[in-house]
């Protein structure tokens, strides 16, 4: 088959695959060298039938035993050369291609770590993981085999046909006739197959999602006895995938059978024609043997084109999937406005929100921003509690300080410096965070806590654990060296929360952001943590998301967040008196004018409620 056919036809396929070039470039010499070696090896394979012809037409016909020995020696040498070239090819690419795969994976990982949190909110980690593993493995295989062999087989076919035509051009032309129908068939196949292949990949993704969710949500499924309906939906999804895969197989079956059938028919025709020519004396028997031997040697290169094209197609999709993520822009660093913009001398340790607005990057234009016109000044050393109804934007507001999300308008200053002018490293060194969802990493307890501070040692570790009432860590099987996280000991929500708190305070940060840090603690532990935390908060500027009066008590002042705006700022007592909404949030008593369920249920103060129950 002609050379151009050996290349994937679809421009977009080629274009996608060309994007791999930056990763291939460092190993290009090895890769092309290996392809060259493979072409030479396959030429050697093509020369072998010629030696056979020489043996049959020469020594065998002349009954020359010495010539037979010589011919066999040539065959052996060519055989050794072929095997050696095979080895050289593999040796040349094995480590470099493993390197390409590793480099792409490392790049992906590095890139993903630096993508905004908003990106990770949208992308399930399973989707990212499948790109880092199966897709990249596919690409390595593509570089090792389909790419090389599209080249090699194309060259082999070309050279093979030159040899065939040189031997007997009439027979050679007979073998060339199927080229046109095969090209058409391959084109049709590729169009259809790429659509089905993409559909199958997406359906695998859906299936993975159901698996992932049914594992993560196992308590809910069990709690409501829903595992049968879950199994049913899994079954319908996997049956859908099966249907798609069978459709894919139907296409493959079609192309494989035609790729087998058509050239075989041509070889049959050449055989009949060749026999006639031998009978007519126009062709030697040896030439016919060699001719057919060459034609049969070309069978595999021709047949392989079907699956080589399919693999290239899948690799192109994998490349697209890889770059889909790599193309997402990393967060910008500092805005370039150098030097701190000093507000005043007293700015040291001050955290200020000025006209801050936030809407999610993918929010519809014109929708109400999550946060707007946030003006808040937290004095040096002050602790500000952030109180607001569920979904009022408290967590979002705290995420703006370490720039996990970017404010869409306005500015936030620390020490009088706009945080967008600092590097993220510097900013996150200044600000320490404890999240509502306490995540521990696969590392020891000590390492998990100490990642909150550079250069902190054993003393700081003990102090932080003591503040967070996480002294249980010393009683773990291997003390603070005990492995936790996905790969280690599983801890309770309360234990994890206390370690996360220890992590936030270990570095004695200048600015502290605590998002409902005590929600999973029992009352007794909470009281102890609060007492210890007071000392820490005394020397740091902090913002604390609070749902409970007990947490609010940690703060000097309270900011009430209502529908994305700061509704009121003051001390706990002041707000209890002045703000009905605050009073409602803190005690559930005192009707707020816009409290949704206000009218439906009579107000019961805590005491009344309790008394009523108690006497039932």
């Amino acid at each position, binding site marked *: 088959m002609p050379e151009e056919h050996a290349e994937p036809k679809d421009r977009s396929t080629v274009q996608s695959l060309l994007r791999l070039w930056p990763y291939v470039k460092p190993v290009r010499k090895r890769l092309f060298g290996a392809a060259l070696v493979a072409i030479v090896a396959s030429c050697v394979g093509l020369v072998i039938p010629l030696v056979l012809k020489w043996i*049959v037409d020469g*020594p*065998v016909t002349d*009954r*020359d*035993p010495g010539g*037979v020995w010589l*011919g*066999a020696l040539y*065959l052996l040498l060519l*055989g*050794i050369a072929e095997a050696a070239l095979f080895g050289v090819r593999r*040796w040349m690419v*094995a*480590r470099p291609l*493993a390197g390409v795969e*590793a480099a792409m*994976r490392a790049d992906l*990982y590095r890139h*993903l*770590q630096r993508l905004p*949190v*908003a990106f*990770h909110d*949208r992308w399930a*980690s399973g989707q990212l993981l499948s790109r880092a593993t*199966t897709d990249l493995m596919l690409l390595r295989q593509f570089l090792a085999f389909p790419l090389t062999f599209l080249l090699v087989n194309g060259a082999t076919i070309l050279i093979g046909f030159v040899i065939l035509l040189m031997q007997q051009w009439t027979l050679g032309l007979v073998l060339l006739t199927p080229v046109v129908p095969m090209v058409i068939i391959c084109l049709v196949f590729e169009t259809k197959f790429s659509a089905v292949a993409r559909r199958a990949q997406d359906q695998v993704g859906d299936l*993975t999602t159901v698996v992932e969710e*049914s594992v*993560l949500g196992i*308590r*809910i499924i069990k*709690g409501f006895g829903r595992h049968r309906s879950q199994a049913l939906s899994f079954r319908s999804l996997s049956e859908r995938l*099966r249907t798609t895969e*069978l459709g894919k*197989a139907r296409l*493959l*079956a*079609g192309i*494989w059978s035609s790729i087998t*059938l058509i050239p075989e028919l041509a070889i*049959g025709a050449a*055989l009949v024609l060749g026999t*006639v020519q031998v009978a007519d004396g126009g062709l030697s028997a040896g030439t016919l*043997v060699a001719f057919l*031997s060459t034609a049969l040697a070309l069978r595999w290169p021709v047949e392989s084109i079907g699956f080589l094209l399919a693999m290239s197609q899948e690799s192109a999709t994998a490349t697209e999937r890889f770059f889909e993520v790599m193309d997402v822009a990393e967060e910008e660093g500092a805005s370039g406005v150098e030097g701190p913009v000093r507000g005043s001398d007293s700015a040291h340790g001050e955290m200020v929100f000025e006209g801050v607005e936030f809407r999610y990057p993918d929010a519809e234009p014109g929708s109400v921003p999550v946060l707007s016109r946030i003006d808040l000044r937290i004095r040096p050393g002050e602790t500000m509690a952030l109180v607001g109804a569920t*979904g009022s934007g408290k967590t979002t507001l705290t995420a703006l300080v370490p720039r996990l999300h970017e404010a869409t308008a306005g500015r936030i200053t620390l020490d009088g410096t706009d945080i967008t002018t600092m590097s993220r490293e510097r900013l996150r060194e200044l600000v*320490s*965070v404890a999240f*509502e*969802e306490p*995540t521990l*990493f696969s590392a020891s307890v000590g390492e998990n806590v100490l990642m909150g501070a550079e250069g902190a040692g054993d003393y700081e570790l003990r102090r932080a654990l003591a503040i967070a009432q996480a002294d249980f860590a010393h009683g773990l099987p291997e003390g603070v060296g005990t492995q936790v996280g*996905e*790969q280690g000991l599983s*801890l309770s929500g309360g234990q994890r929360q206390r370690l996360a708190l220890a992590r936030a305070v270990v570095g004695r940060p200048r600015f502290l952001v605590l998002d409902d840090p005590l929600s*999973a603690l029992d009352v007794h532990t909470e009281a102890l943590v609060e007492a210890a935390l007071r000392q820490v908060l005394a020397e740091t500027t902090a913002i604390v998301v609070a749902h409970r009066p007990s947490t609010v008590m940690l703060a000097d002042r309270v900011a009430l967040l209502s529908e994305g705006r700061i509704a009121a700022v003051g001390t706990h007592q002041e707000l209890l008196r002045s703000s009905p909404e605050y009073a409602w949030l803190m005690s559930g008593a005192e009707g707020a004018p816009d*409290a949704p369920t206000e009218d439906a249920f009579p107000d019961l103060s805590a005491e009344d409620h*309790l008394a009523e129950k*108690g006497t039932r």
Partner: protein
Amino acid sequence: MTSTTTADTAPAEPTEDAGSAGDRFDRDDLPTPPGATGALLRSLLRPMRARVALIALVLLVQQLSVQAGPLLVAYAIDSGVPAFRDAEYGPLIAVAVGYALCSAVAGGTQYAFVRVSSLVNQDALLDLRGRIFRHAQALSVDFHERYTSGRLISRSTTDVESLRELLSEGLQELIGVVLSFVSISLMLLWLDFGLGSLAVLSFVPLYLLVRRFQRRAGVLYAERSSAIAAVIVKFAETMNGIRPVQAFRREPVNDAHFEGLNNTHRWTNGSAMLEMGRYVVGSRLVANTAVAGIVLWGAYRVASGTLALGVLAAAVLYLRRLYDPIDRLGMFLNSYQSAAASLEKIAGLLAQTPSVPEPSDPRELPALTGEHPGREVVFDQVRFAYRTGGEVLPRFDLTVPAGQTVAVVGSTGAGKSTLAKLLARFYDPTDGRVLLDGTDLRDLAVPELRRGVVMVTQEAFLFSGTVAENIAIGSPDATRAEIEQAAKAIGAHDFISALPDGYDTDVRKRGGRISAGQRQLVGFARALLANPAVLILDEATSSLDIPGEQAVQRAMDTVLHGRTAVVIAHRLSTVEIADRVLVMEHGRIVEDGAPAELIAGTGRFAGLHRAWRESLT
């Protein structure tokens, strides 16, 4: 480990030998009973015996048709040429027809093979996926607490994938290789016994090569799969914890750590590819040497007149085909090695027996008779200990009358969550019984059990789909009106209505935007819709603000009025609605009474309550 450090919401027993420096992936394995892997593969393929036989038959026919080619060449040269010279066209026409027929059969069998084998693959995979899924779902919560979600996910994804590769590519290779070895050898032996024997003799060094490759590659593949598993774990952990990663500037440290893991994988990956290269070189060398030897001997005999030229030509054509599939055999071994490793892990998972089995002879709950829709709960001499030995509940007796709301308080590790999990039958007691209206929970089938008891936990997980679908998990048959009613009752209607598409908002797309408190409200709406006789709330209000918590309490007072309820809370505000308070410590009840009674007393609860009241003012 003492009970004070025993975790509350999860068993704090070491899932594995914590801190051991061994290979992480090894620890990932569950013990696989001997022979289970083979049994699993057999059981997957057994329903498809007929189809597998059909595949073998199709491939056999294909081999015959393909192998007939050189035979026809020999016939054309040895008989066709002389006959044609005598103006006798019969043999040549026979060659033409025969070759066309063979081509047609080869093409047709190729088509049939791909179709049938894909049917076998897909059905086997469907079966296996379903088995893993159903089994994982049937396994009890304590298993899920020990076997991390990442491992379970990789069992049903990457491990199934490697079996798919084996079935879709490997099986074909294996059957094809075996058939072509056998048929070509027979053909060669039939053509000329001497030449054929020489070819068969070459199988000895080839076999040795295959064995060596299998042995060495086995080790390398195991190392490689451990290496990639370590990469996966690190990757998933980073992405799932991206907030703390960025906030604590872990990126450079992670880069370095990941680089190390990634490089280990790169090295083993390269080594595995090199090993494959060595195998290919060795087998090629044996094959080419054998070809040279056979040609030498054959040509010698043709020259001395003891062998027909056509036979030699056919033999040479066959020889090239004989050794072609050796590389493919290497590929088969390749996919077999990784599939075997995966199947072993899957077999280990499937060999786990649910520690909370469904009853073989389920009983029904007695019809509700009392004025309450609630049911009586009895813990009858219940003892509970983790399998590793940590005893959480030494001996526990408790009777909760139908319709009563019981609040359970106590410090971390007191056994509150264990109590809840026993009542929800997430665990079974080590000794004793948990009774619902006199019926042992172990005798209830799942649907009956869940009409009786529903538990709402602290973690409010949202499934893919709309908000309405998430609420409907409580009762799949619920109408939209019922769903909205449940949301209204719990105070979740307002925020849901404010979402871009209201109840039809896809939670995945906006998943990051629904706050923890809002998720908990959705969780409650589920429970309201499920309408159980007994409701367990395990820290279910931890992320709610006080108004949210009160909405929950009001809903329990109205919608769920008369249900039996067990409420576990750190918050004393939650306790307000209880008829009765239990204070637990070290798995025992230390205080038990009406809230007012306990508050008036001098016990622990009174102290806690005083502190809480003070914080309100």
